[in-house]
């Protein structure tokens, strides 16, 4: 990424090293807790000036669950499996949308360029976003899970805390995917279209509509490499088993690993120098 402008061939002999009047600048390490926290606080502060978005993010999953519960009024078993899956899918979708638009705005408003000309590490920015939206995801998932388990009689064999854990990891994955695809969107229109492009195939293949092992073998193989499949698998494990199964641990690790991997890819799309 560095350019050949950095051909500092010691031609600066006349003046010797520059003695700045200010103390040595703070080092720009990969991850700085204060800068990450400041970024997360800033993202949350921006959202606080937009209460409608917060309300929509938090209420819509609850309303959908409520709707679903009475759609399957005569068939509570179906609600159990679909409801649990959706608890994992909602945070993924909302965080994907919010993050992709937020980072796209950061790119188009010029604030990203300004930040990257400052001593902000790319990791600080990504982690700041992940932290801020992670906090929102906790609130969203806690409300949705609480509503489903206590008021809509979602029949969960395992601990609701594990449902919450998977939901949180899904939110992180959504944030990561949103950050990543925003690099390829030149406008809000394109960013929104990435939702059907990136999320819908996963939604169809994740086992929500039909168990994955009953799909065409090709589709099943594809679903094996899509992270949302493991998010839904994890939810279903909690639904059916009292304790943490090995499959559950595997699912959780895969979702978390994917989130971290995609966050890393997202960081790689942030360029200090652009054409």
């Amino acid at each position, binding site marked *: 990424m560095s350019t*050949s402008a950095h051909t500092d061939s010691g031609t600066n002999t006349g003046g010797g090293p*520059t003695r*700045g009047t200010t103390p040595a600048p703070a080092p720009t390490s990969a991850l700085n807790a204060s800068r990450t926290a400041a970024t997360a606080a*800033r993202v949350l502060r921006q959202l606080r000036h937009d209460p409608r978005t917060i309300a929509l993010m938090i209420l819509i999953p609850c309303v959908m669950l409520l709707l679903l519960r009475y759609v399957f009024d005569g068939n509570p078993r179906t609600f159990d499996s679909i409801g649990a899956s959706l608890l994992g899918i909602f945070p993924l979708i909302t965080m994907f949308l919010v993050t992709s638009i937020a980072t796209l705005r950061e790119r188009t408003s010029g604030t990203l360029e300004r930040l990257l000309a*400052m001593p902000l590490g790319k990791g600080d920015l990504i982690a700041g976003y992940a932290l801020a939206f992670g906090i929102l995801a906790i609130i969203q998932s806690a409300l949705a899970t609480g509503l489903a388990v206590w008021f809509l009689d979602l029949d969960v064999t395992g601990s609701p805390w594990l449902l919450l854990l998977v939901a949180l990891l899904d939110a992180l994955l959504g944030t990561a995917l949103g950050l990543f695809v925003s690099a390829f969107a030149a406008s809000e229109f394109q960013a929104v279209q990435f939702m059907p492009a990136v999320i819908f195939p996963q939604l169809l293949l994740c086992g929500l509509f039909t168990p994955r092992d009953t799909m065409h073998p090709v589709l099943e193989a594809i679903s094996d490499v899509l992270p949302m499949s493991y998010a839904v698998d994890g939810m279903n494990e909690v639904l059916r088993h009292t304790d943490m199964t090995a499959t559950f641990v595997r699912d959780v690790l895969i979702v978390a690993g994917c989130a971290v991997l995609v966050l890393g890819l997202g960081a790689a799309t942030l360029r200090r120098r652009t054409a």
Partner: protein
Amino acid sequence: MMNYPPGPPTNDDTPSTASPSTPSASPAVRAEDLTVVRGPRTVLRGLDFTVPRGQITGLLGPSGCGKSTLMRAIVGTQAKVTGTLDVLGSPAGHPTLRTRIGYVTQAPSVYDDLTVRQNLAYFAAILAPGRAASERRHDDVTRAIADVGLTSHADALAGNLSGGQRSRVSLAVALLGTPELLVLDEPTVGLDPVLRRDLWNLFHDIAARRGATLLISSHVMDEAERCHRLLLMREGRILADDTPDALRTRTHTDTVEAAFLHLVDEAIAADRTQQKETAR
């Protein structure tokens, strides 16, 4: 290659062509054969120039001549830069420069959904992170808001401000900390005459009292008179690198605007003769 010693702004009409007499004060920016390619176009074509320290250097030229690209190259956000470009003694884009340069893009780059103070507080926290610096940051933010005359709007959302006010918020961000070099891309565009005068007084104050170097682009020629030095650009090349007085004297004109037009006409004529010769 034009090469002038950095020094205090003088009113003498003869551009000094002597070799640099004060080598200890290395220039704030030094470019040699600086070339920038954007897509199919070569935007900057082998520029050689220096920007002296502690002065206001105006970067003037018609829109599209490469002013913004040059500024982005100096700040280190421009890709595909070749040649030598040293800024404050380090190659442009060097990580240690990130706290020492204040940069304002042409379009205001602030968060519309944050208040003026919240915007500045965030950028200040990036420049000087940590709880230990929190008091200093607070003072710094208050001072920067006062510098651009937005104290009465400190708690207004940036998105609710007028265009001129938003660009001043963007300018205030660049004033945070104590940047040794301020790179300002058309900071006074769209501002009324009173504000423009106030900002130019602020720029002179920053140069004189903080000893900072300012590189300010503009296409308003009357602002050029307020600079210590001028870089006149046209089509990716530097037409002139001189003091306003020296430019006027050299071209036998009364204003920088007339001097600039004179130089442009000269350059166009030179281009034509060159084209004719190559055609032959």
